[in-house]
């Protein structure tokens, strides 16, 4: 338990550091006009992504692990929306990506039959769609309720 208290102390120290750093004068007044921002946009174009991906599945009888670097070029369609008002702040959006991908990495697959250790180079097509919504509903000028949901998956 003493370890836990030590980590809590470190967290409080960081919090105090952060708060003291932010206590500076502000030029922009927090009046109602400055709390309003509305924007809707639809974006269409191309997106290139490169990132490391990792998957793992562990059961009582088997073990599977995949580590890959994936590059993908996608046709992109997305909607971004912001509605910031004194009474509420909402952001919502949707996106659709589709295009070819190429990867390389390692797969380790262990079961009762045996153990497979390979280098893998997948190549194919990927489709992805997502939705997101965030709301901060203000009960007064300073206090709010938060709701944030998002979902994504294949198409």
């Amino acid at each position: 338990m003493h370890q836990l208290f030590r980590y809590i102390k470190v967290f409080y120290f960081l919090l105090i550091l952060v708060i003291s750093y932010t206590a500076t004068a502000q030029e922009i007044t927090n009046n109602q006009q400055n709390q309003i921002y509305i924007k809707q946009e639809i974006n269409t174009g191309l997106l290139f992504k490169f990132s490391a991906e990792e998957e793992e599945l562990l059961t009582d009888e088997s073990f599977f692990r995949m580590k890959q670097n994936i590059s993908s070029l996608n046709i992109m369609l997305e909607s971004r929306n912001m509605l910031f008002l004194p009474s509420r702040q909402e952001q919502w959006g949707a996106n659709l990506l589709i295009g070819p991908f190429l990867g390389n990495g390692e797969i380790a697959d262990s079961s009762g039959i045996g153990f497979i250790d390979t280098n893998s180079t997948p190549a194919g097509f990927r489709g992805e769609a997502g939705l997101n919504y965030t709301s901060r509903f203000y009960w007064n000028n300073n206090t709010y309720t938060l709701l944030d949901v998002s979902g994504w998956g294949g198409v």
Partner: protein
Amino acid sequence: MFQDGGGYDLYKNNAEGTFIDSTFKSSPYNDNSSDSKLRYGFKAKAGWGIGRINVVNHFAVAQWLLNKYYPGRIFSSDEVNAVGNEIGRIKHQRELRNGHSTEIESEQLVKFINEKLFLEQPDGLRYDWEYSELRPRFHGSRFEGGPFFNYFNREPDFVYGGFVKYENHKYRSTGINRLIGATLTYNGYKRDDWVTLEVTSGWSWYPSLKNELSFGLRYIPGMVVKDWDDLQPVNHALIPYLEFYTQMNSRYRIESSFAYRIAKKDEMVVPGPEFSVSFFRSKY
């Protein structure tokens, strides 16, 4: 907005390596097969918070335009706010379906500056107006917390817990925005639980109205919690990041980001680089 890990993949996989059977006999392994994979997920969090972060794009554009077209003149905060409010009034009347005219909008702003601030009508403001569609610039702070859950159709599949988050954005000038934030998350899982703290510090630099360069650092310590009396060693991850955004004209944009996850293998953060660049047409 874009998740890592794929949605629906239809692919051909070429795998070469070794197979070791249950008698420890080793043999070459070669598999060249077609496959498909579906990944989907859902995240939800709810909570309570105090504070407010506003989007200050209209204020930033107002300050930028006044400084450019009336060099040497000192404007009060009230004057900059008044022009910012007028920019907001003009832009908030836009309808996505019908589009908008930058010529009519910029004329409205020129008329406002002339009639309300008694200043000469600036020449060429329409050119800058077309480039005034920055990504959101924030100002303010908030502290929030609450429960959350994530579902993913791969491991870790169902994670639930609670979080507290502090975020502070500072509009320093037309050229600089600053961000600091910290999130403490307790993650419950069917095997072991874990705790992470994510501390972020970053800056955005606006060398001109149409360009943004952001950079910063994320530090993510985390530890597995098997039992409160048996805490595991803390893992550390450091993620420097760099983002670039430019408006090529009133419609076309380039958005790019690069991050390098510095972490030990087989810990909480997957180490390695992450890069994305998009070229897109924006209708707004």
